[in-house]
């Protein structure tokens, strides 16, 4: 299985997943169920993570299709533009869902519901255009695949990085700033779970978590700038594939300290239960692995 193949697997996740999470949220609001609402928010957060590899593998699929005469480059480009727009809105939705999970605030419900409906629309149209790339059977007989007039988001992003020589270095600086913020706060929170730091309620430590999310956000944005400008440098690199894989699992481990106490449970004063300590240690190792692969990326992985 190559990355283009993986794209065919992953590209259904945002559409179907969003549908399910959206249904959960509506049911939660109708039944006034906090548990269902949390489940929906977790779903939105996970989907925001999974949308990243769905987009990145699309880059690999695009390269794999290059030079084929039976594939319309215009349709591929329109699909990519729609997907990038959907990805951006999806990440904002994931951020809001994370904030709602971190500190339950009521105004987030409506905001997330509206944003999720918008995102679903964007994801569905990206998927619809994508379907036309290799499925002529779904078109009316004899019709050409429609090329919708999407704003050229992907090309504009690439041009922004490539035409301005200062963008790449500045993005690299901020990629390191984001990395330090994220790693520092993650280390602190997980050391509290492990019991290395004691004498402080977990709820007080997790008030720093938005800074870790800010760091993660900075790195997703700057990382996407690198990818938009030079996709072939990354899709052909196995170290990058592993880096993204580890980052997604590491991202999921952020949910553990985020959601502690959401159901009224209180964390022991000294250290988390064994399962929590395993997640905390795993989280630290995963983030170190992400840094390792990022650093080794230029030296390994590309043939």
């Amino acid at each position, binding site marked *: 299985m190559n990355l283009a193949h993986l794209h065919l697997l992953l590209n259904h996740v945002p559409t179907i997943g969003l549908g399910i999470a959206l249904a959960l949220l509506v049911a939660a609001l109708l039944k006034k169920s906090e548990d269902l609402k949390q489940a929906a928010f977790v779903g939105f957060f996970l989907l925001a993570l999974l949308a990243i590899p769905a987009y990145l593998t699309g880059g690999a699929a695009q390269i794999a299709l290059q030079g084929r005469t039976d594939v319309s480059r215009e349709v591929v480009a329109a699909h990519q533009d729609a997907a990038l727009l959907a990805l951006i809105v999806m990440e904002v939705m994931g951020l809001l869902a994370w904030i709602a999970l971190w500190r339950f605030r009521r105004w987030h419900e409506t905001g997330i519901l509206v944003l999720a409906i918008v995102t679903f629309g964007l994801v569905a149209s990206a998927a619809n255009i994508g379907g036309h790339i290799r499925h002529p059977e779904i078109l009316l007989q004899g019709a050409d695949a429609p090329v919708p007039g999407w704003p050229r988001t992907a090309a504009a992003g690439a041009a922004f990085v490539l035409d301005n020589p200062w963008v790449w*270095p500045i993005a*690299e*600086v901020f990629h*390191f*700033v984001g*990395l*330090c*913020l*994220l*790693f*520092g*706060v993650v*280390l*602190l929170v997980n*050391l509290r779970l492990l019991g*290395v*730091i*004691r*004498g*402080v*309620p977990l*709820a*007080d*430590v997790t*008030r*720093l978590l938005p*800074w870790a999310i800010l760091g993660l956000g900075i790195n997703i944005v700057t990382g996407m700038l690198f990818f938009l400008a030079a996709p072939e440098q990354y899709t052909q690199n196995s170290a990058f594939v592993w880096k993204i894989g580890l980052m997604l699992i590491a991202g999921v481990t952020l949910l553990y300290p985020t959601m502690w106490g959401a159901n009224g449970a209180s964390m022991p004063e000294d250290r988390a239960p064994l399962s929590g300590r395993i997640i905390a240690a795993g989280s630290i190792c995963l983030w*170190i692995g992400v*840094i*390792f692969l990022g*650093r*080794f990326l230029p*030296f*390994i992985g590309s043939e």
Partner: protein
Amino acid sequence: MGSLAGQIEQSGVAIWIRESGVLYGYPLILFLHTLGLSTLAGLSSAINLRLLGFAPGIPLASLARLFTLMWSGFALTAVTGMLLFAADAVRHSSNPAFSVKLIFVLVAVIALALTRTHVFRLQSGGKVLAVLSLVSWFGALSAGRLMAYVAEFVL
């Protein structure tokens, strides 16, 4: 080449780091440098955010243990930094971004030491030190990251 930087660059260790081409050479040192600096600057920044009033419920005393980890991070960054410098001593020593980076690191490390000796003992204050530290880490990261570009465009 008779200069000190030239002599360093021609030492056996420096040549090995620069030219061996093995993954446990230059790439590993670079990774350890990043790991050390992100531990040091990351934890230091988290403590600074606490000093600035975010997460006020965290007692400073509970964070005192982090200094061992931060100083370990500093040691790792310093040792690997010297190795990386040695591998390309002539270019690095004439790179203005490198001097700027060292000054920022010096200020940040002094601010960290003062935070430990003054703020943690008195259990209060430290906002000025926290801002100074955050600015210095940002400056050090920027200058360090931009060294390659300064070398390319200016030198």
